[in-house]
Each structure stands twice: as structure tokens, then as C-alpha cells.
């Protein structure tokens, strides 16, 4: 575990030169993904996420974020997205964020806000749920 965490330490984050081709951008995406996955144990320890989520769930959250942009073919756009991702990872690992940020953005994620997952509405009918959401269903 120690060598994995050491392998992923990001000391200083600077902008790299533009990637020459789509293949190089693709390689950089995989590198970024691997660095992120190797930082996941550190993140879980910093923010005390052991009871909330496990590592493979965080990994799939990361990969779904990457997959959202999987259709892009312009290397410069990919570089820009990687820069944003690296900055985000750097902020998380340096503890610039707080626990509720991580939980809200990556644990609960796109599935819905926390208050929607409460038990208050679970017994109600589908009609009522749709009615609360909008006028047209």
C-alpha cells in the first residue's frame, strides 16, 4: 500500500506541453486515471470515507467522469480536460476540499442530491413522485 501511495504523490502541478496526437492524449488520460486510482487510499484516509464508500466505488466514479468525455477527439480539448482533472485531484489530495465536497461530488455523484435519497418519500406512489417533480408526466 505504501508504494502505491508513494507512486501517486503529486508534488507540483504545472501545465504540460500540448500532446502531439490523439494517441499521446489517450496515453495521458490513462496515466491520469492510474494516478488517481493510486491516490484513492490516501483520499479515503484523509476524509475518513471508510464507512461511506469503498475503493471500487470511487474508482467507478472516476471512470464514469472520464467516460463522459470519451467521445472527444481533439487533443487540445483532451489536454484541457486533463489539466482540470489534475487540478481537481491535486486539490483533493492536498486536503483543500472538505468531506462533504467529496461525498457530494463523487460518492453520491450524479445519481441525485442527498436529500432525495431520504426515506421520507420511499413509500409514496409513482404518481406522487412524478407529480412533485413536474406538471407533465
Amino acid at each position, binding site marked *: 500500500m505504501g508504494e502505491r501511495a508513494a*507512486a501517486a504523490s503529486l*508534488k*507540483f502541478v504545472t501545465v504540460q506541453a500540448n500532446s502531439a496526437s490523439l494517441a499521446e492524449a489517450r496515453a495521458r488520460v*490513462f496515466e491520469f486515471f*492510474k494516478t488517481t486510482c*493510486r491516490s484513492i487510499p490516501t483520499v479515503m484516509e484523509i476524509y475518513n470515507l471508510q464507512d461511506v464508500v469503498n*475503493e*471500487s466505488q470511487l474508482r467507478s466514479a472516476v471512470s464514469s467522469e472520464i467516460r463522459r468525455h470519451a467521445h472527444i477527439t481533439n487533443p487540445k480539448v483532451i489536454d484541457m480536460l486533463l489539466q482540470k482533472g489534475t487540478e481537481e485531484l491535486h486539490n483533493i489530495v492536498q486536503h483543500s476540499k472538505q468531506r462533504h465536497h467529496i461525498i457530494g461530488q463523487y460518492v453520491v455523484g450524479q445519481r441525485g442530491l442527498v436529500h432525495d435519497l431520504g426515506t421520507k418519500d420511499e413509500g409514496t406512489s409513482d404518481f406522487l413522485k412524478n407529480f412533485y417533480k413536474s406538471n407533465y408526466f
Partner: protein
Amino acid sequence: MAAASTSSFIPLKPRPTPRGLSTIAVLKLGAPLSFSFRRPVLAPARLRISCVAKPETVEKVAKVVKKQLALPAETLVTGDSKFAALGADSLDTVEIVMGLEEEFDISVEEDSAQSIATVQDAADLIEELVRKKCA
């Protein structure tokens, strides 16, 4: 060059400064140096041993693969199943390798990771790394 490479010879590309030198440089200069961590280089050319992995290892690998690709439990995942045939794209393959790293607590080098195509490859690589770690 590597054009006539045999099936078991994977030459590593030369890597720049190892980690120890970079940290020393940071302390000396005081100004932030921009570098990303590079893992230390192993022996220059690694001969890949194609020995048979233990069946438990193959089983564990198959379990990780099935969970990652969300395959139903009845799907037959044997040593020869290719990741691409099971419906994994390249990101899935990387994620599976990461899952295996976590499960077996090892660290897979990039060049070795490139050459993984089937479940058996992954199991062999894992066996080798575990053996090296415990040795």
C-alpha cells in the same frame, strides 16, 4: 530495433531521473520544480516468464473482472478469455488492472500493463509480482 522481438521480450524505454534525485533537487533549490513522479526503473530488459499461475489467482482475477464489467455470475471467464471479447474497452482494462493492484496490493508497471490481453496474462503477471514482493 524491437522489430524482430520474440514473444517474451519486452524492452523498456529509458526513463529520466529517479525519484530520489528529484526530491533532493527540490530541497536544494527551494523554488518549486515542476516534475511528476517517475517510478524507479527496474532491470533494463525484463524477460517475461510464462509459467502457469495458480488456479486461485485466476479465480480471483475472474471475480474482479466480472464485477468490473458487471457480467452475470454464470458467464464463463477462463484463463483464455480476452478482455476485449468480454466487452471491456481500454478504460475498463485499465480499471481492472487497478482493481487487481488493490486486491493483491502490488504495483503494475506501465509496460507490463500494456501487454495484458487475457485473464491468464493478468494472473501470471500478478503471480510474478507477488513472488517478487515476498522475496
